[in-house]
C-alpha cells in the first residue's frame, strides 16, 4: 500500500474543500475579533501607560495557557460549539496583536505626530491618517505571526469537534490511514505560507512609500 492513495483524495474532494473552508473561516474570524479587541486595548494602553503592564501580563497569561486546556475550560460555557473554538483562538491572537500594535504606534516619531497636530488634524484623523500608516509594518508583523499561529491551532480544535483540516488528522488517526493525514498536513502548511505571503503583499500594497528602501 502506498503512502498516498490518490483515489481516496479524488473521492473526498468535497469534504476536503469544506474543511479547508472552515479552517480559513475560523482563522479569519479569530484574527478579526482579536484585532477588534486588541486595537482599543492598545490605544488605551498608549493613552494611559499604567494600563500597559497589566494588559500585557493578562494577555501573556492567557497566551501561556495550553490551547487544548483553554478550549476545554470554555466548554462549560459554550459547549462543543464553534463558539468555543472561536473564543479560544481569538484569545490566542490577543498577546501578539496587542504587543505589536502598541510597539508600532509607540515607534511613530514624535515630530511627525506634532506636525500633523500643527496642521490642524483632529485626534482621530491623526491616528488613522498619520500614526497607523507609519505603524503598519510592525502591526503587520504581528498579524503575520498571529495568522500562522492560529492556522496551526485551528487543527487542535478538532479534538473538541471543530477543527477544519484538523478533522482530517483525526480521520487519519482513527482509520490508521496516512492519506487524509498527509492531505491535511500539506494543506495546512500551504495555507499558512499562502496567508503569510498574501499579508506581505498586502503590506507592500498599503505602504507605497516604503518600497525600494527596505533593508
Amino acid at each position: 500500500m502506498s503512502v498516498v492513495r490518490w483515489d481516496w483524495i479524488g473521492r473526498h474532494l468535497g469534504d476536503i474543500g469544506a474543511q479547508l473552508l472552515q479552517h480559513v473561516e475560523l482563522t479569519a474570524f479569530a484574527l478579526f475579533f482579536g484585532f477588534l479587541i486588541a486595537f482599543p486595548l492598545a490605544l488605551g494602553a498608549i493613552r494611559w501607560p499604567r494600563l500597559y503592564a497589566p494588559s500585557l501580563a493578562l494577555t501573556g497569561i492567557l497566551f501561556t495557557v495550553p490551547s487544548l486546556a483553554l478550549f476545554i475550560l470554555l466548554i462549560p460555557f459554550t459547549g462543543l460549539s464553534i463558539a468555543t473554538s472561536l473564543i479560544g483562538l481569538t484569545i490566542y491572537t490577543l498577546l501578539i496583536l496587542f504587543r505589536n500594535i502598541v510597539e508600532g504606534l509607540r515607534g511613530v516619531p514624535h515630530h511627525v505626530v506634532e506636525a500633523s497636530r500643527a496642521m490642524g488634524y483632529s485626534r482621530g484623523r491623526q491616528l488613522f491618517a498619520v500614526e497607523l500608516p507609519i505603524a503598519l509594518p510592525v502591526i503587520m508583523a504581528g498579524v503575520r505571526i498571529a495568522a500562522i499561529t492560529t492556522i496551526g491551532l485551528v487543527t487542535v480544535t478538532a479534538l473538541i469537534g471543530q477543527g477544519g483540516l484538523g478533522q482530517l488528522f483525526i480521520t487519519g488517526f482513527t482509520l490508521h490511514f496516512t492519506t487524509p493525514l498527509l492531505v491535511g498536513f500539506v494543506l495546512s502548511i500551504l495555507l499558512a505560507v499562502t496567508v503569510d505571503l498574501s499579508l506581505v503583499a498586502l503590506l507592500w500594497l498599503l505602504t507605497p512609500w516604503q518600497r525600494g528602501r527596505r533593508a
Partner: protein
Amino acid sequence: MSSKDVPARYMTWRRLWPAGLCLLVAPAAFALGMKDDHANIVSQVFYWFADPRHWQGTDGLVHRIGQHLYYVVVSTVIAAAIALPLGIGLGHWGRGGLLAINVANIGRAIPSFGLIILMFLLVGFGFMPVLVALVALAIPPMLTNSYVGMQAVDPAVRQSAKALGLTGWQQLWQVELPIAIPLVMAGVRTSAVQVMSTATLAAYVGLGGLGRYLIDGLAQQQLVQVVGGAIAVAILAVITELTLAGVQRAVTPGGLKS
C-alpha cells in the same frame, strides 16, 4: 522583510497582580456564567484536586506531572542543542541568516498535532513521534532569537573587541554572547512554554503526561477530570514561564539590565 518578533518583556511576579486578581475573580465568574446543571462544577473540581487518590499512583497527578516535565525537558534540550549553536554561529559569522529565518518561519507553519499523528502512523507507538514533533516545534523560536540576538550586537562593540586583540572565539564568548543572551533566553522561554502546551497532545497517541486527563476525560465525558487536568497544565505552564523569566533575568549581564 520586517518579520521580527518584538522581544518579549520580562514577565515577573511583580507584574502579575492582575493575573492574581483574575484567579480570584475567575471562579466566581465561572460559577455565575454557568447554567444550573454546571453550577457546582467549581466545587467538584476543587474536591477533585483535594482528593489524595488523584495525586497518587500511575494515574496520579504527581506521576503525570513527572511524565509531562520529562517530555518537555528532553525535547527542549535536544532542540536547544540543535538550534542554539546554529543560530549563534550564523549570527556571529553573519552568513546564511536569511535562509535560517525563512526555514524557521516555515517551521512555525507545521501543525504539531498533525506531525505527532503522522509520525505515530509512520513509526508506531512510543516517545519518538512526540519527540520529533516537539523538537520541530521548539527549534524555530530558539533559532530565530539567537540569530537576531547575535546580529543585533552593535558593530562598534565588535570593532572594539577586535581592536583589543580578542580572537574570534573570545569575541564570540566574552563579548557578543553576553550581549545577545537576553534574546537567546527569550527564545528558549518561548519554545519551552510552547512545548509545555503541546506535550498535552502526547496523550492522544497513547503516551502519558497531563494530556491524559484532557483526552480521557473528553472521551469519557468526565467534565470534572477534564477541567481539573486543564487547570493543572495551565498552572504548570505559567510556573514554567515565570521560572524561565527569572532565569533570563539572572543570566542577563548587570550592565544590560534596565
